[in-house]
Every structure is written in structure tokens, then in C-alpha cells.
């Protein structure tokens, strides 16, 4: 792809923003992109170790706008964003408080919306860009005691498919990854997702590795040039 009009110019390194980059899937994605020559800006509530690190709450729209502007100043125009920031909790539906409900929606759906609103004008203007949202197999198959998490992750799928259709002719692609239970700090040592009795029920018989999700994200941003509005499911066969 051509990114400039200067003949024989060195191609600049590609720039990605990864949210939730301090741990888990976000950190694995940032590591894989870094190893492939990308310059990675990590957004997280905690400092991260990538080319640029911004401590920011993805649910805070003005803060995300400022953080994205800082990345463009520091690293250059953004070629890809990966929205991986999130948290997980299980609760009976009747016990979900309005504050917990709002936190799920504002962080998962809002974190994606805020990031996209900040980068999309630049991406459509440059005529290329890849947006990847991390959703969940629970958005597809649901799960008991997962209503608020599944609602937030499901909303991401609707947004991804709609935005993909809306910007398809601008060169910007929008896709999602819906992992199954993944071996990250998001699920604690005593989580039911780590229970051998549960793992025996899924075809792969094990948790998804964060590196498998990272390889999938790398495929989406680098090679899936004819794919948009698609939800990829490295979920160990949890939902087929």
C-alpha cells in the first residue's frame, strides 16, 4: 500500500493503539505487533511497557481523545486500533446493580466507541485503517450469570457490523475477535472457567492462550484485507 508521495522514502513503521495493553490479551497483542515491527501505544489504567504508554480510562471520552492526539504527535498517524480493555464479573441478573451495569457498558462498549470516535476521521482521511474489537464467545452463546457482560459484548458485535458496512468503501475495516475463556488475569485462579470439569466439556479441552488471540488480531490488521464486519472466534470450540 502506498502511504506517501515521496519516491524512495523509507516506509514509516506502522502505528497501533492497543487498549488494555498492560495485561492479558491486550499485552499479548501489543507484544506480537511489536515483534512484527509495529510501533505500539498502550492505553491502560496502569502504565504499560510499549513504545508509548498512556494511563487513561477508556470510558472517559475526552481523555481518550487527548490520548489519541498524543499518540499521533508522538508516533504518527494510526494504522490500527485494538480495543481489548475490559473486566469480567459474574452475577445473578437480579443482583446486578445499576453501577455494575453501567460500568460494563461504559468500559466495553464505551471504550470501543470512544476509541473509534477519536481515530476514525484520521483513518477515513488517509484511506486505510483496521479497527479490531475484542468481544467474547459469551456475546454469541450467552452464559448463566453473565447478563451484563454478555449484553456489553453483544452490543460490540452490533456496532462492529454496522460500522463495517458504513465505512467499507473508505478503506477502513472493522472486525472483532470473540475468544473463548482465555488464560489471563481476567479469570481468577478459582474461576469456574478454570475448573477441569468445565474444560472437559469443550472440544479443545483447554483454555485459549492469549498468544492465539494475538495471532488472530495480527491476521486481522495485517492480512485480512478483504474481511470486514466479521467476528472471528478462537474459542476452543466453546461456541460452534
Amino acid at each position: 500500500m502506498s502511504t506517501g508521495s515521496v519516491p524512495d522514502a523509507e516506509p514509516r513503521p506502522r502505528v497501533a493503539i492497543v487498549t488494555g495493553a498492560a495485561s492479558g490479551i491486550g499485552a499479548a497483542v501489543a507484544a506480537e505487533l511489536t515483534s512484527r515491527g509495529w510501533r505500539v501505544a498502550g492505553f491502560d489504567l496502569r502504565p504499560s511497557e510499549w513504545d508509548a504508554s498512556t494511563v487513561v480510562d477508556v470510558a472517559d471520552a475526552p481523555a481518550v481523545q487527548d490520548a489519541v492526539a498524543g499518540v499521533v504527535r508522538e508516533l504518527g498517524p494510526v494504522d490500527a486500533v485494538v480495543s481489548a480493555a475490559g473486566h469480567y464479573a459474574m452475577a445473578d441478573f437480579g443482583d446486578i446493580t445499576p453501577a455494575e451495569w453501567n460500568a460494563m457498558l461504559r468500559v466495553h462498549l464505551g471504550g470501543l466507541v470512544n476509541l473509534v470516535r477519536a481515530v476514525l476521521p484520521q483513518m477515513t482521511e488517509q484511506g486505510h485503517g483496521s479497527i479490531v474489537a475484542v468481544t467474547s464467545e459469551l456475546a454469541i452463546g450467552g452464559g448463566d450469570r453473565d447478563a451484563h457482560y454478555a449484553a456489553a459484548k453483544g452490543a460490540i458485535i452490533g456496532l462492529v457490523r454496522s460500522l463495517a458496512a458504513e465505512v467499507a468503501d473508505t478503506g477502513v475495516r472493522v472486525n472483532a475477535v470473540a475468544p473463548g475463556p482465555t488464560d489471563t488475569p481476567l479469570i481468577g485462579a478459582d474461576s469456574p472457567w478454570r475448573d477441569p470439569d468445565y474444560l472437559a466439556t469443550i472440544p479443545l479441552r483447554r483454555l485459549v492462550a492469549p498468544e492465539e488471540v494475538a495471532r488472530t488480531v495480527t491476521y486481522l490488521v495485517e492480512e485480512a484485507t478483504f474481511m470486514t464486519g466479521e467476528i472471528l472466534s478462537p474459542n476452543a470450540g466453546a461456541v460452534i
Partner: protein
Amino acid sequence: MTAAQRPLAGRVALVTGAGQGIGRAIAERLAHDGATVAVNDIEHDARVDSVVAATGGVAAPADVSDREAVFAQVDDLARTVGPVDVLVLNHAYMTMGALVDHDLDDWWRVVDTNLGGAFHLIQAVLPGMLRARFGRIVIVSSEWGVTGWPQATAYAASKAGLISLTKTLGRELAPQGVIVNAVAPGVIDSPQLEVDARAAGVTREHIVAEYAQGIPMRRVGRPDEIAATVALLADPRVAAFVGQVLQVNGGSTRSRA
């Protein structure tokens, strides 16, 4: 090139329908990723020789609907280059017509080639994969297997059948290390477009432009874009996709397959 860039080093990949189009692109990509590629098509012709030369692989001609020929070819490969580690089912036969007018023998030839050929090939390679407790099977289905298409009942039925086969074998074989997934391409710039153009009574250029209009990305896809997806599903480092259908179609479906 580092090991990470040649994830299929030391592996044997059999690609059916690899004499041209998407199959050729898949063969070239898997060779680039390090595999020894067995290049299958229905005849051992100059196109196959050309792909063998481009990939440094071996010719593995057979009519996939001929069960005995398929088993003989897989046995030959085991003796010459080793058992098949990666099977990519890309072969396809397609004719179109209204259901009541479609010649019945030809209707079944579509199904018996596309779906029946997959059955024979998977049965032929599976004992070796199970012995090794490793295998990657990538089935090339079609957008029309997800959405259906007028006058393509046989083709769509065969391709939808491949999706159900993928899901079922994904569940059945993953516990034993054999990972089965599918790719469902949309409209790709390949020789198959000639069939569509003939059926519609228009030129190839005309039908490409017409298809592009109906695709959100406003273009048709390239064979190498399908090959990249196959490479993801063939990657030994990734087993987390199980029984999934990856749709590569420029945004046409945006649905769960």
C-alpha cells in the same frame, strides 16, 4: 527467514483443486510458510506442473470424487513425502440451473465432488493425523453456502454441507489434536467467475463490476486474501479455532455462519 515466519517447516500440506485460482494461491502461501505442498487437481496437466515448480512441491493428481484414486494418492504421498499434516479442501465443481431443469446426474456430480470428495479425502488422511495426534484440515466453503443463491441449489447445498461437516468434525476431532475449520470466500477474482458469467450470459468484466457494486468494500477479492486466511487456520501455533467458519467477502454477510 525465521522459524516464526515458517510455521509449516517440516509439514506436508495437500491442497486440492490447486491447479489454478484460489487453490494455486493457497499452495504458494503454504509453501512460503515452509510446507512441502502436494498439488492436487483432477488432471496432471501443465498448470499442475507450473504450481509444483512455483512451490517446490509434488504433483498429486486425482479426481477427488473417485474414492480409490484418492486413497491411492494419499498412500503415495505418505511413501514419497510423508503423511499429510495439513489438508486444504479447495476443489469445487459447479454448474447452475433452475432446480427442476438441472440435469439430475449433473446435480449429484456437484454434491458428490464438493461434499463427497471432502468425505473421501478426510477419511484417507485421518488415520495418519490421529496417529500423529496432529492435523489441520481447512475446508473452503463459500458465501453461497451461507446465504444460498438462486439457481445454485446443488453448489449451495454442497457448500452448506461442508459447513456442517466442519462444525461436526471440529467437535469430534479437536480432542485428538486434529483441528477442522472452514473459510467461506465471497466473490473472488478466480476462474470460477467465468462460470457465473456464462450462466448470466455476460462478459467476465461485466459480472466483476456487477458483483463489486453489491459488496460493501466495492471490489471483489483476490486469491491471496483467501490464502492468508487458510494460513491462519493451518498454523500449528493456533488451535483455538475449532469448527469455525471464517467469512472473507468484503463485508457482504456480516453474519454468524
